[in-house]
């Protein structure tokens, strides 16, 4: 019950932020949007009408709420196109990258954490954990630039920017290029080369984005495994003659999965979104983070408004899904006390 109230309040807060964005901006937003045509009173009036700025603030919020609920997000000032049309392909580009980063960092971080926990207090573990600490301190926008200069400019292994090579013409069936490149009906090997090109474009952004979440998950996993290994049931299992692999899959993994998921869920999605904003700017990935930054730099307020709304609601939805997932995995939460 309190969970759903919290959710409603968060939703309202995100709506309020995105609503007041235009109204709190310094100067007259209408003049700003009109630009050269700002001197014309008729144009000014039309723009006021379009933005709904000439009614009371309560009315305005009601109109805004109705617009958002009916999917009417308005037009971008810079391009003049409908925001939804601008937003959706970018959203898919970011989602494609984000999901892969999420999965990659979860598994690689988990594997590193398991390794460090089982080799605890050995030389290998000490070297690994201190090098992870150093990697964690690298600012990711710098890491991206270094990776570009080493792997793209010096070694010529990966492309510098973009989603797919210019020689490929993909039809956006789903918007996710990795899938699109495979399902397209083309002559032999074209699909394979297109898929390879997409993958090639993704490797550097994935590496850049997944460093921070990977290290944090490795830390959490290591600490929780060390915690579980001290428990009595591990000793019992050992004395019954179970081998380490069996103990790991039957006892350790089940017991660490819930704390690791709950601690990392909120943190992981935040880090991924924050990383996406920087990584997409570095690699010119046509995603939502870069869209946000360019529209902030060009003061495109309607776009900022909707992007903030989208990202906020997306974070909420992911949190809910992760919470339900934890409830399914954790038998303790299924029993009503």
């Amino acid at each position, binding site marked *: 019950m309190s969970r759903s109230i919290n959710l409603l*309040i968060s939703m309202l807060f995100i709506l309020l932020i995105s609503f007041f*964005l235009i109204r709190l901006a310094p100067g007259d937003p209408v003049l700003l949007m009109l630009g050269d045509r700002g001197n014309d009173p008729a144009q000014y009036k039309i723009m006021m009408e379009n933005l709904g700025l000439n009614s009371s603030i309560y009315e305005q919020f009601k109109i805004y709420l109705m617009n958002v609920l009916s999917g009417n997000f308005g037009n971008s000032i810079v391009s003049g196109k409908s925001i939804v049309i601008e937003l959706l392909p970018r959203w898919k580009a970011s989602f494609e990258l984000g999901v892969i980063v999420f999965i990659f960092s979860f598994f690689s971080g988990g594997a590193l954490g398991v390794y460090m926990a089982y080799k605890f207090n050995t030389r290998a573990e000490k070297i690994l954990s201190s090098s992870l600490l150093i990697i964690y301190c690298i600012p990711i926008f710098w890491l991206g630039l270094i990776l570009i200069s080493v792997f793209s400019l010096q070694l010529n292994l990966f492309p510098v920017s973009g989603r797919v090579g210019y020689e490929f013409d993909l039809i956006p069936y789903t918007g996710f290029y990795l899938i699109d490149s495979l399902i397209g009906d083309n002559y032999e090997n074209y699909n394979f080369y297109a898929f390879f090109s997409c993958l090639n474009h993704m490797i550097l952004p994935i590496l850049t984005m997944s460093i921070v979440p990977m290290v944090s998950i490795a830390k959490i996993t290591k600490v929780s495994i060390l915690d579980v290994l001290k428990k009595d049931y591990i000793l019992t299992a050992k004395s019954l003659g179970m081998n380490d692999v069996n103990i790991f899959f039957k006892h350790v993994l089940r017991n660490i999965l819930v704390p690791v998921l709950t601690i990392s869920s909120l943190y992981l999605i935040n880090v991924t979104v924050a990383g996406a904003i920087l990584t997409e700017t570095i690699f010119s990935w046509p995603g939502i983070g870069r869209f946000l930054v360019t529209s902030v730099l060009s003061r495109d307020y309607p776009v900022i408004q909707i992007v903030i709304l989208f990202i906020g609601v997306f974070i909420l939805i992911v949190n809910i899904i992760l919470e339900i997932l934890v409830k399914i995995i954790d038998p303790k939460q299924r029993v009503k006390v």
Partner: protein
Amino acid sequence: MINKNHVFIFPFILLGISCFFLDPYTQNIDKVLLQPSLTNGFSYIFGTDYIGRSYLDRLILGGINTIGLALIIVFTSSILGFFLGCYAAIRKGTIESFIMRLSDILMSMPGILLAIVIVAIFGNGVIELFIALVIVLIPRFIRFSHSITSRINTELYITIAKVAGSSKIQILKNEILPNSKNLLMQQSILSFSEVILEISALGFLGLGIPAPLPEWGAMLAESRNYFSTNPYLIILPGLCLMLVVLFLNYIGENLTINKREKNAIKN
């Protein structure tokens, strides 16, 4: 007295002294993109940037700008957050749930996203950046001090202090503050490194400290076009940033160990 951790303060003192001799603004057209070398003379030892400004001076002053701003931000938000969190924990009731819920909501958004929104609303400048990052940081300190204070509040010595007739302010001053000082310090240092990263990330996106002032993130962004021929332009600021963050994280981690040792001695 002085232990080995204090060694890390000396670079900062040197930075502070050297800022009186720096000149990060003079543009030398005949010395554009000078490679770093020892024969350049002292002020061009790290070369020059794309309009011929001394890179050493810009690096040092950029560090002072970033670290100074981060210090002010962390100081303000830790003090405000500590008192708000303690107030919420001691007062209880609707005020507590209001403060805690608001900070929960603010914490569920990524910090840099929140900062970008605030910069988008108010425009970019140093004061706007300060407001944005304080808003990003305060909820963390509120939650942190709230949980510590609620835990301490159930201890016996608080009850004894209450029975002895101490007021709420006296309890805060004499019991809660000394007991949460170390943890607050550690949290502040870890947040300090995070704020430095966030300031330079915003600077990199062009939303941070405005242009003529040197700043590491902005320096990285403006040398992006030249780095295939002049790699030092991106290596140096990033290295500085990484070393500062590494130092701060190291100090933060070491503080925990000291605290644990102290607790172990007490028990």
